[in-house]
C-alpha cells in the first residue's frame, strides 16, 4: 500500500522563469476587500498555463 500520496507537485521553481508579468489581478489581503492570500488568484499569463 502506498503510504504517501502527492497532492501537488513541485511547481514553484518552474513558475519563476515565465512569471512576474503582472497581468493577474491585484490581491488585497485586508479584511475590508474581498481578497486574501495570493494563492487563490488565477494566473493570466498564457505561457504559464
Amino acid at each position, binding site marked *: *500500500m502506498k503510504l504517501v500520496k502527492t497532492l*501537488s507537485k513541485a511547481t514553484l521553481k518552474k513558475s519563476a522563469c515565465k512569471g512576474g508579468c503582472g497581468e493577474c489581478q*491585484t490581491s488585497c489581503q*485586508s479584511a475590508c476587500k474581498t481578497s486574501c492570500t495570493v494563492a487563490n488568484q488565477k494566473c493570466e499569463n498564457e505561457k504559464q498555463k
Partner: protein
Amino acid sequence: MVHIFKQLGYNIAMDIESGAIHILEDAAAEVLKLLTPPMVENCPEDVISQLKDKFSEKEITDAYSELYELYKEGMLFTERDYEINIPQEYPIKALCLHIAHDCNLRCKYCFAEGGDYAKGRKIMPFEVAKAAIDFVIEKSGTRRNIEIDFFGGEPLMGYDTVKKTVEYARSIEKEHHKNFRFTLTTNGLLMSEEVMDYLNKEMSNVVLSLDGRKEVNDAVRVGINNTGSYDRIVPKFQEFVKRRGGQNYYIRGTFTSANLDFAEDVKHMKELGFKQTSVEPVVLDPSSPFAIREEHLPAAFAEYDKLTEVMAEYKKNGDFFNFFHFMVDLDQGPCVIKRVKGCGCGGEYVAVTPDGDVFPCHRFAGMEDFKLGTVFGGELKQDIIDKFGESTVLKKKDCEECWAKYFCSGGCPANNYNANGDILKPHKISCELERKRLECAIALKAFEADLQEND
C-alpha cells in the same frame, strides 16, 4: 522547510520551497516528523526504534523509502536553488477609486470611521475620476488588464460619477490597448433595480457587505439612526444575485470577537441562497471591544475547523459553494514572483481619494506621510513607491521561517503598519489566522482529490 499538520483527518506535509504537497498515512507522517535533512538511502535505526511500538518495521521502512523517493525528486526538504528576480518596474495597473468619502451606514468597526476617513464627507467629482483614468492609462505602460475598484465609504452615493467614469474608460480603452475591469463594493442600501441592472452589465465583480445572521449583522452594521440594516439589504442582495446570472459576486462579511461562531454566519449566507461568500476577521486596535485578540484565537481556530467540515459536507453533496478564504489554486496558481510580491500596494495598486490624492492603498488613504502625489500630474514620491516595492516576503524577517510565506506573501502592509509601525513587521494575530485558514484550505483540496478518486 517542511510543514506537517493534521486537518479533516488528513496528515499533510508541505514542502515549502518546491511547492509540493503530500498526504501521508500515519506511519509516514510519524516517520517524517523525526527526519532532518539531508536524507540517506536507508531508514535510520533510531527512527525505527522510536516508532516500533506503533508500527511494524516494514511499515516504517516502506514509509521511509517513499519519502526518500520524494526527497530525491525534489519534493521534500527542498532548498531554493534559484533566484527570484522581481521586476524593478512597478507600473500602476489597479486603482481603488474612493468615489465617496461618505456612507449611509455607521458600521461600528469601520476603518474609514463612518466612511469619511475622518477627513470630512465628500463625493468624488467626475473630473477627478476622469483624471484618474488618464493617470492609470499613462502609468500602466504595456500592462493590458487594468482594474478599477469603486470603493468608499459607499460608492453608490456617487453613482453618477461611477457611471460617467465607466463610460469614459470604455470610450478610450481600445485606442490605448487596455482592457478595463470594474468592481464595486457596496452595502446595498441604494440598490434600485436600475442600479442592479447597471452593475450587472458593467462590473466584473461586485462585493456585497453583509455580516451573516440578522442579530450579528444588526449589532454592528447599523444606520445613522443606529438601527440594523439586515432587513433593508438582504432582499436587495437576493434580487441582485438572481439577476446577475452566473457572474462573479461576493457576499462578504466581517467577523469580530462578538461572533466567533462565524461558521453559523457562513451557513446562514448559504441558506439565504448565496453561493460565493467571504467572512473575514476584523482588524482593529486591541483596545476596541470588537477586536480579535490573542485570547480569541482558540475559539476562532475551532470555528475554522468546524467550517472546514461544513464545507467538506457541501462538497460531498455536490453543492456549489465558495468560501473565499478556503480557495487555493494548487495547480495554476500565481507564479512565485507574484507570491513573494503580495498585494502590490503602493506599486501596481494605488488608491485615489475624492480630491485626487494618491495613496499606496485604501487603508493608507488620508495618512499624509504616505501620500504619493495626485492624479493631476507631477511626480509621484519614488522613495515611498520603492519602499513598498521592496517589501516582499523575502525582506520580512518574521516571514523567513514561516511555512506560509509563498501563500501569504507577508501579510497586509497596512495591518502591519497599524499594529507595529512597520510595513515589514507582520501582525501576529493575522498570521495565526492566515496559517490556520491555509491548513483548512489545503485539507479541503485533499478531500476533493479523494472525492474525485472515489468517483
